[in-house]
């Protein structure tokens, strides 16, 4: 494994005419309709929208966990066929293995790809430090708080050094204060690791805090999707006038004030 300091890492996503519908009580429910989008390498894209708008579906298609009805997704030019080692997923729940320690869980992703244990653990330790859990390496998941468990999940995804990090409402289940801390950490990790980050969120402030661009999926399928560029310097200040303005604009899109 020589990818440890691989600086030609990419992570470009091309989405073309993507459609997906589900059968629900005998009716077809279209969640994505002819969606086309390009995500640049190293970009941070946040996906927002009301419940049932297809945010998670889009993320699962990018992850290769769901198959679109039509259209395609290409990563660095190659079509997505199922899950791939160029992507790592962080779920809403940490999904840790309760019988493994923090170290074991973080090394898991590398070990299942056949990286020898000592090497996997070495790399895992680096990312455990990055998420600030060095002291808890030998703890078991049930000894961790919700925020700590989610950090372990993040470290596990980073350890495999993906080109693209896919996050499905990773902070949705955390309390308000832990959430803000974790948003700051995600911003730092994204900057340090230079990965492409695609994240689904319910939280508009979180979206503005982390995004280069925000993809707004409408609840009404007739309506158009919208892309909002967030042109603010980093690290961002949530109370700054322009930040507040972005938030008001986004809220207005959903009829909120």
């Amino acid at each position, binding site marked *: 494994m020589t990818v440890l300091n691989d600086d030609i890492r990419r992570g470009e996503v091309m989405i073309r005419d993507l459609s997906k519908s589900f059968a629900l009580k005998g009716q077809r429910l279209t969640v994505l309709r002819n969606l086309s989008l390009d995500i640049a390498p190293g970009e941070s894209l946040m996906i927002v929208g009301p419940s049932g708008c297809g945010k998670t579906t889009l993320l699962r298609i990018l992850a290769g966990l769901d198959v679109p009805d039509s259209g395609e997704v290409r990563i660095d030019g190659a079509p997505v066929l199922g899950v791939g*080692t160029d*992507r790592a997923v962080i779920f809403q729940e940490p999904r840790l293995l*309760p019988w493994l320690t923090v170290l074991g869980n973080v090394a898991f992703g590398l070990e*299942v790809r056949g990286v020898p244990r000592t090497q996997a653990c070495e790399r895992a330790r680096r990312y455990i430090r990055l998420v600030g859990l060095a002291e808890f390496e030998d703890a*078991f998941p049930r000894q961790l708080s919700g925020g700590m468990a989610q950090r372990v999940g993040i470290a596990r995804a980073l350890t495999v050094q993906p080109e693209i990090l896919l996050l499905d409402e990773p902070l949705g289940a955390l309390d308000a204060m832990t959430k803000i801390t974790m948003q700051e950490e995600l911003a730092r990790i994204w900057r340090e690791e230079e990965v492409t980050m695609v994240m689904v969120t319910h939280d508009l402030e979180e979206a503005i805090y982390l995004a280069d661009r925000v993809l707004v999926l409408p609840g009404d399928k007739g309506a158009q999707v919208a892309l909002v560029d967030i042109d603010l310097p980093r690290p961002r200040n949530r109370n700054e006038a322009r930040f507040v303005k972005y938030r008001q604009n986004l809220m207005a899109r959903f009829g909120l004030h």
Partner: protein
Amino acid sequence: MTIQEIDSGPVGAARTGEDRIAPTLRAVAGRAGDFVTRYGVLVGFIALWQVGSVQGWINPAVFPPIDRILAALWDGLVGGSLLEDVAISLQRSGIAFAAAAALGIPLGLFMGQIPVVERALDPILQFFRQTSALALYPVFILLLGLGETSKVFVIFWATLFPVLLATIGGVKEVDRKLIEMSATFGARRLTTFRRVVLPASIPPIFVGLRLSATTALLLLIASEMIGARSGLGFQVMNAQYNFQIPKMFAAILLLALLGLAANAILVALQRWLCRWADPANS
């Protein structure tokens, strides 16, 4: 950023008292209290039996005093007459239990993983399971003769189902989200099975093993009461025919102890395999 504290129970609670000299004393008192609440009823039952039998409240010919039962147990074990029975009973139930685990766990893991196989085999398994092993014992005797083989087989037959069904259920109940997580890291199916499904199935497998162990001893006695010349079940019946009531109770007591020992071994093994779930580990 605090590690969640695990409550340390009455001993730890005692330590928080203001008095700095008394904690050891209190710990001892606490432990004695624990013992009384846990084993008080059992000790009371034994004492009542002993006194009741000696005083003639209950018929001592049917319920001999505990000391005579223990004396009969001592004679049987030291004299060797019961020891041989213990050995042969352990052998019968041990072989049957080992065979049931050796077949039931792998078959259960396989069936739980492959829905088609599970669907196809489930009806016949349910049918066999509901057919009493004791009712089938005459069939096994016809097929295998009245020797050791039919005895071991009838125990094996009854012992197989708890562990097999618990294993199938355990594998099917493994959290889909963990399996999906494993898949997103590019784990192959066999790797996910080894790293996720198998460890997650260990607790339910042990529930099945403990049920199987109980079943094995139950069927052991039943099979030894029919056409046997040795074994603890035979001794219970034989002592009763010859009106050696203390010896009969000694054999019953031994059976209870065997059951407790089997359960304790399985619990210890499970604790060891599932150290991650042990609160004492934190």
